[in-house]
């Protein structure tokens, strides 16, 4: 069986958020992924983040492409509309959905194959348009669903389960996003919920395209010791550069953040991301610096994580095209149809 309804157990002891909902209300159907798959941890982090943000699940639109990773939107936010597009084409679906209604929360979940191979073009262009959405790449270095072929994010020298060694340089979505003009660029690890949850929250609240690359080991095809996307390798070379704390609108920013290493960045809706530099010499508001830092550390085989770049002033698609603030789909027809007098006027041009 490939579809399982999750039994609903009411746990009265579970904490409730401001909407009176427990994390259970943010879950979906039972995951059908392999036990231990990194993707499931990301699902859990998403549930936690939406719950903590007090977002009504039905105000979210979940979108994905095709792959093990792209299946996961079925496993959280049951009360939200979801759409599984075709392989690599979720960004265009998200762009159109966002064009129709700019007032929902858009979440895209993709894989490294989905975004960096077949869908690289759409990924790049959605980012470039600065579509207001959180875009997560659940990055395992392989095509999970088609059983273990190398993906475009596999590192040189990385060995496949069947022994083949990857010879081609990887595409790093974070570096790509930085060079393509991304306004929010972050990386995390499925095994680090403490880092992941605030990054997800900040990404959701960011006014623009938030790229979150999450290393997410595939236990079935790419978690052996020769793989650079394994749990062991990731943990060993993990290099957090900036830690992000998400502070909602209403909460005052703690004094501690205001001095020294902490750096508050106010988001569009008045909430704040407080960046704590783990690495003292890191500057997350300077694109060129972020790029060279990442490059430096990549050469040493280190995986730099955290909120690596943020620019809250970059305008998102609707701000650039000057769209009305209401959802286009909800505009009354009377505001859309020019009427018969205008038709008369227009046709004078064709006489």
């Amino acid at each position, binding site marked *: 069986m*490939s*579809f399982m309804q999750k039994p609903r157990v009411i746990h009265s002891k579970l904490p409730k958020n401001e909407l009176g909902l427990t994390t259970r209300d943010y879950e979906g159907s039972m995951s059908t992924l392999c036990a231990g798959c990194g993707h499931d941890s990301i699902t859990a982090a998403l549930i936690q983040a939406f719950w903590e943000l007090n977002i009504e*699940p*039905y*105000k979210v*639109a979940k*979108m994905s492409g095709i792959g093990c990773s792209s299946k996961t*939107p*079925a496993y959280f936010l*049951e*009360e*939200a*509309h*979801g*759409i*599984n*597009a*075709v392989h690599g*084409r979720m*960004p*265009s*679906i*998200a*762009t*159109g*959905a966002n*064009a*129709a*209604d700019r*007032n*929902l929360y858009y979440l895209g979940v993709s894989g490294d194959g989905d975004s960096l191979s077949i869908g690289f*073009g*759409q990924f*790049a*262009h959605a980012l470039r*348009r600065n579509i207001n959405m959180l875009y997560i790449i659940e990055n395992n270095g392989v095509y999970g669903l088609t059983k273990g072929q190398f993906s475009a994010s596999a590192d040189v020298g990385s060995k496949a389960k069947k022994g083949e060694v990857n010879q081609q340089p990887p595409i790093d979505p974070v570096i790509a996003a930085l060079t393509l003009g991304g306004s929010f660029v972050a990386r995390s690890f499925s095994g680090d919920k403490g880092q992941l949850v605030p990054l997800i929250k900040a990404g959701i609240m960011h006014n623009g395209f938030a790229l979150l690359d999450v290393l997410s080991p595939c236990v079935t095809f790419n978690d052996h010791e020769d793989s650079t996307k394994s749990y062991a390798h990731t943990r060993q070379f993990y290099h957090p550069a900036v830690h992000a704390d998400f502070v909602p609108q209403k909460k005052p920013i703690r004094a501690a953040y205001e001095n020294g290493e902490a750096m508050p960045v106010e988001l569009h809706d008045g909430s704040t991301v407080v960046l704590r530099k783990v690495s003292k010499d890191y500057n997350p508001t300077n694109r060129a610096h972020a790029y060279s830092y990442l490059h430096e550390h990549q050469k040493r085989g280190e995986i730099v994580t955290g909120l690596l770049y943020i620019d809250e002033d970059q305008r998102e*698609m*609707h701000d650039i*095209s*000057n*769209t*009305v*603030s209401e959802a*286009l*789909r*909800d*505009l009354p*027809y009377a*505001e*859309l*149809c*020019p*009427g*018969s007098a*205008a*038709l008369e006027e*227009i*046709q004078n041009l*064709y*006489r």
Partner: protein
Amino acid sequence: MNTRSNDFVIKIANVNGTGSASANGLLMKAIFRMGIPVVGKNFFPSNIQGLPTWFEIRVSREGYLARSGRVDIMVAMNAQTYARDLADVSPGGYLLYDSTWPRDKQLTRDDVTLIGIPLAQMVNEQFENIRARILMKNVCYLGALAALLDLDMRVLEELLKETFADKQKLVAGNLKAIELGYQYAKQHCDCPLPLRLEPMNATAGHIMVDGNTLAALGCVYAGATVGAWYPITPSTSLMDAFKEFCERYRVDPETGKQRYCIVQAEDELAAIGMVLGAGWNGARAFTPTSGPGLSLMNEFIGFAYYAEIPAVIFDVQRVGPSTGMPTRTQQADLLFAAYASHGDTRHVLLFPADPAECFHMAVAAFDLAERLQTPVMVLSDLDIGMNDWMVPKLSWDEDYVPDRGKVYSQEQLRDMRVFHRYTDSDGDGIAYRSLPGVHPGGAYFTRGSGHNRRGAYTEDADEYQDVLDRLRHKHDTAKALVPAPVVHSKKGVKTGIVSIGSCDAAVREALDILAREGTEVNYLRVRGFPFNREVEEFVERHEHLFVVEQNRDAQLKALLLLETNVERRKLTSILHYGGMPMDSRCIVSGISEALAKGAAA
């Protein structure tokens, strides 16, 4: 020669990039304003500058809008194509050329009257600027033609003034150039020629416009708010026009903000994806494209069919296969569009025959797409999309209400025990949908993978088939919803023509010619797919049917064979697929010959 007023063809041979289009357009419009039915066809290369182009204007007292196959007056402005242009003139015709330079003596014809006008010389004497000299040469031949054809000069002047309303300096220059040509022809030629214009009153209540413009206008009137596209000839002007109309009629007067969103996508895969995202989210969305773009859209079209997402696609057909001839016209996407994408798919298609139908069918396409929750493709072509046609003026029904289809409201979802996305509760094959962000009760997962009537993932044979069969049933429901065919038929006539789209003008002229020769033929023009019952009845009650279409492989005929009970032996194809708009001759000869051979009684 006897005078032949209001019934001739002027063909103007130019080099592209020399600004001839506006002069040619002025000529056509001036004739139109004299009340004389007229049609213009632009034959242009897939190139920006330096290659030959032709503009063909048919003046037709009778109001025939197809090409006629004749050339009565050739304006030979392109030395490169001169020999060929001379050869093109029908016996007894005229050729106007620039006599500034000596002409090759070999290039004459006994049955063609040559009219030399020293265009370059006159223009160069009067204009300093190099660019102006090139442009004004065109305006100068316009002046000569005005004298030769007895064009109403006041109409021409008025048009010029309107065209350059905000550029007074241009008006003066243009008028001067016209005058040069006009006076020269008056003094040196026998004006007017036997072919001449006489004012009529046959264009009142009509407009002169191209199909892409009116399709775009239809999108505006239908309430479309999201447009995504990737530039491709001959569809590009559709989005250009949509943008222009929106800038004028879709801006919030108070805030100056846009009540529309146009996205120039990175390719057609993304363009259709954006349309689907918007349609899924409840906006009316569309994309204009042509063959190569439609090819790219295939995977998503199948997705939309299976996941049941409304979308409107305009396929302005051009010559295929592959890149083909981007600036030539054809109707060769019929089969491909009808069954686009892998697996069992079948789509709803609309076939406009002229720009006015582009307007009405654009509106209908959105209604159908939302009613049927499926992609609807409007198949026009380059001839309709990019050439100016004379069509009856449009009117708008103020009582029109868009058909948004079966969408549950927030209240309905709230009061519902359970919502199942793909259940046919009305028996017409159309299930109810819900929109994101409206109510938690409406949530479901949209997928292109196997799903059952509840909207859940399935790999179960029965559950899968259940949905697939309902989709077939839904497509049958569409038969009664698509526009009915246009039928001209007389009782007792056993021979019929079945045709489609822009063949219409040629077919109707052919019917008149055949009738004059004593051959009565009935005519049905299909306007939608799946075929309406009336199509079925028409093919059933005729003994012999000529299927007239613009492609090599008889695609309309193939669709009739696949989708109706017509017997193959009844059908004879008349095919025209060289890329030029069709004229009546091949239809008349095709039918006459077949009938002479006794193929039909």
